[in-house]
């Protein structure tokens, strides 16, 4: 009887601890940081990691050969090329996060601004300041519903009064204010619970068995990953779901592209006034938009071809669509492109940078 009581109290305590940990964003992040140290990876309590791609890791399908494709970036060094009169500001995400400065032509300086970060920059008026806004398609609808990036990517000395969004931006962006409900309820509590309760090396086997069972029996991946219709690729489920804002298959709301274009125009006007010579938009298509377009909602072409769009765009979508081997542009078991895809993007970008460099040179000569 006493043993039963003790077990019951222990279970209650464990449950409450798990709920508190999974609810608290900061506690969860601290634990995750500690567990994700390189040295801890192979320990029994280390967290699962795979080298074949984020989707093979998420779906526990590392054992399937056709999805195995390691990251193969091979960036050329172009640091010696051109006039070095461009300061490039690349506002982007993980697609371009690993690209070194040397892989871009004609640069004097290179600043990569990760889209979640907040920073204030001082433009060098002696340079040709170019901004590239790179966004993966799955984040586009959410990201550009508003011109909110103005609050995160700030330009020092630029008159805030020019735009109401900029005027409202927080002075100290690093502090996060939490209200009462944020402390009690966390929309990611289930993912956090799964992480804290089950994401340990010693518990991987049952997951791998389930993944293998589903794959062998039903040719299906588990959880947040789906297998392409031809069986050769893994797709992030959110990019193929019918009702997900990240999905290539989700219908666009009425006037949604107009709203996106209006936000992009606001952003364009703002940074133009702030001193940028040009601001480019570059949308990296979801793999499914290229490899299995099916009922594609045409988000990228609709935005790019909108007559109201002021921002020039780097048209990767058309390039990928016209590719003879579109399948060779993305990693089979990852959400991202491979080296070939990255190089295609870099070629477009570097062509633009060379043109801009020449323009900058002409301006100096004419002065």
């Amino acid at each position, binding site marked *: 009887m006493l043993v039963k009581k003790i077990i019951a109290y222990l279970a209650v305590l464990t449950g409450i601890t798990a*709920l508190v940990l999974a609810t608290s964003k900061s506690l969860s992040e601290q634990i995750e940081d500690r567990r994700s140290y390189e040295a801890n990876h192979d320990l029994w309590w280390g967290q699962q990691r795979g080298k074949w791609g984020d989707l093979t890791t998420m779906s526990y399908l590392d054992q399937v050969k056709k999805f195995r494709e390691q990251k193969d970036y091979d960036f050329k060094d172009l640091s010696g090329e051109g006039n070095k009169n461009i300061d490039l500001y690349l506002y982007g995400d993980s697609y371009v996060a690993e690209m070194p400065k040397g892989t871009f032509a004609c640069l004097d300086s290179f600043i990569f601004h990760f889209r979640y970060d907040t920073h204030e920059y001082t433009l060098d008026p002696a340079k040709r300041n170019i901004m590239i806004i790179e966004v993966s398609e799955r984040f586009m609808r959410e990201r550009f519903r508003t011109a909110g990036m103005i609050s995160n990517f700030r330009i020092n000395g630029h008159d805030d009064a020019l735009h109401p969004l900029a005027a409202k931006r927080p002075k100290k962006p690093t502090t996060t204010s939490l209200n009462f409900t944020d402390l*009690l309820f966390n929309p990611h*509590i289930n993912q956090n619970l799964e992480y804290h309760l089950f994401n340990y090396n010693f518990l991987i086997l049952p997951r791998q068995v389930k993944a293998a069972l589903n794959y062998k*029996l039903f*040719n299906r991946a588990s959880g947040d990953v789906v297998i392409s219709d031809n069986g050769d690729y893994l797709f992030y489920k959110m990019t193929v779901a019918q009702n997900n804002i990240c999905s290539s298959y989700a219908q666009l709301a009425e006037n949604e592209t107009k709203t996106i274009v209006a936000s992009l125009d606001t952003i364009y006007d703002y940074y133009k006034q702030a001193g940028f010579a040009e601001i480019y938009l570059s949308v990296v298509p979801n793999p499914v938009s290229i490899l299995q377009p099916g009922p594609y909602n045409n988000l990228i072409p609709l935005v790019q071809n909108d007559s109201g769009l002021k921002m020039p765009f780097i048209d990767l979508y058309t390039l990928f669509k016209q590719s003879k081997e579109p399948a060779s542009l993305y990693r089979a078991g990852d959400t991202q492109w491979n080296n070939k895809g990255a190089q295609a993007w870099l070629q477009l970008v570097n062509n633009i940078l060379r043109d801009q460099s020449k323009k900058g040179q002409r301006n100096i000569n004419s002065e």
Partner: protein
Amino acid sequence: MTFNSLQFLVFFMVVTLWFFRMKQQKGRILLLLLASCYFYMSFIPEYILILGGTVIVDYFAGFLIERNEGSARKGWLVVSLIANIGVLAVFKYYNFFIDNIHSGALLFGKSVTLPMLKIALPIGLSFHTFQAMSYTIEVYRKNQKAEKNFLVYALYVMFYPQLVAGPIERPQNVLPQLHEFRAYNWDNVKEGLARMLWGFFKKAVIADRLAMIVERAYGHAHETSSLALFIAAMFYSFQIYCDFSGYSDIAIGAAKMMNIRLVENFNQPYLAHTISNFWSRWHTSLSSWFRDYLYIPLGGNRKGAFRHKLNVLIVFLVSGLWHGANWTFIVWGLLHGVLVVLLTWERRQEGEKRAGLNLAFRIALNFVLVTFLWIFFRSENLAAATGYIKDIFAFRGGSYYLGVSRAELAFSVFIIGVLLAREKYLPTHYIKENTLFYCYTLIMVMACYYLGVFSENQFIYFQF
């Protein structure tokens, strides 16, 4: 916090274990009430204020109805009904109403712009308002005494297992149970847990697997063959059954573990041989609510054949509207009503002996009818529904791909067979032998984990 989430499993474990550690009913009531608040707030925290508001109004309305007679008594009932229906009208139907005014005005060549509300529908709103209304109506009818203890009354409305998707309870069933301190009962725990596991199985293994097929068919209707669309429509019949009855099983099982008996909500509805028979087996807590609080007050079948048919149509129309502010639900409800009214020959034969092939044929026919009506329920709008039905009757070829492999399709059919056989021949969830119970638990946990399709799919009926 959906039932098929880790959060719920941990939460349920903590609450249930803690519940049995408490030595007084007062403490248990408080614990369950706090747990129910947390459960409800995990969807949209702010909406606890709306729920709390209606709880307070109905609690005091119950007292005032009991203390008064005549018109004052009726007046307080009306206050309670207006408060509850008012919340429903604002949060669930206002935008639908305004949208139809806009469309109606356009038909007459006029443009009207009335403000729309930018609000999310509070989860399970129709369920808990109906449950609250049944309390004040029963107090008015003198079938139930007004509840003195506010916490007990609040828990009657907010008891988390059935708060957001029923079964819609009656005060006579639940309130006495909430007053009674019942000691830990291993038999109830076994029965409740076994039933919960069966509910999880129905949701994770069957409903969410079929959801993949159905979603594909509805999303690619124009390129899918007629036969595949018809198969997907039949799969939807089982998806919604497993989804909703799975929820009810988990709710009833969870309550049972805490020694609270909730009403049954389903009785093998696809074995019904008529539409009216279907409604005596499907979502019975709602059907009986409409019978007792709408159909009978309207006159039922006591005022002649015409009024009887009209009453049936009204009830089904309101039932359709109860499900959602969309013409698809209204048409779905009305069509059910029309079929009940038109197929009166069925009822004439109710008393006749039916057996063998004749009965099997009628069950199959009824299932097909119900399946076609579900198309309205599932579709985004009327055009999509009629389009889907047209595509089925086009008898055209096209893709037979339904988003899953053939093996998974075959497994889906097999698992539906398991479902029907289990519920027909093994309807009980109580397993007397402990060893057998442990084996069953282990098998069901393994089956749910290894065969379950885990996604973010909410229960379909949460939206109502």
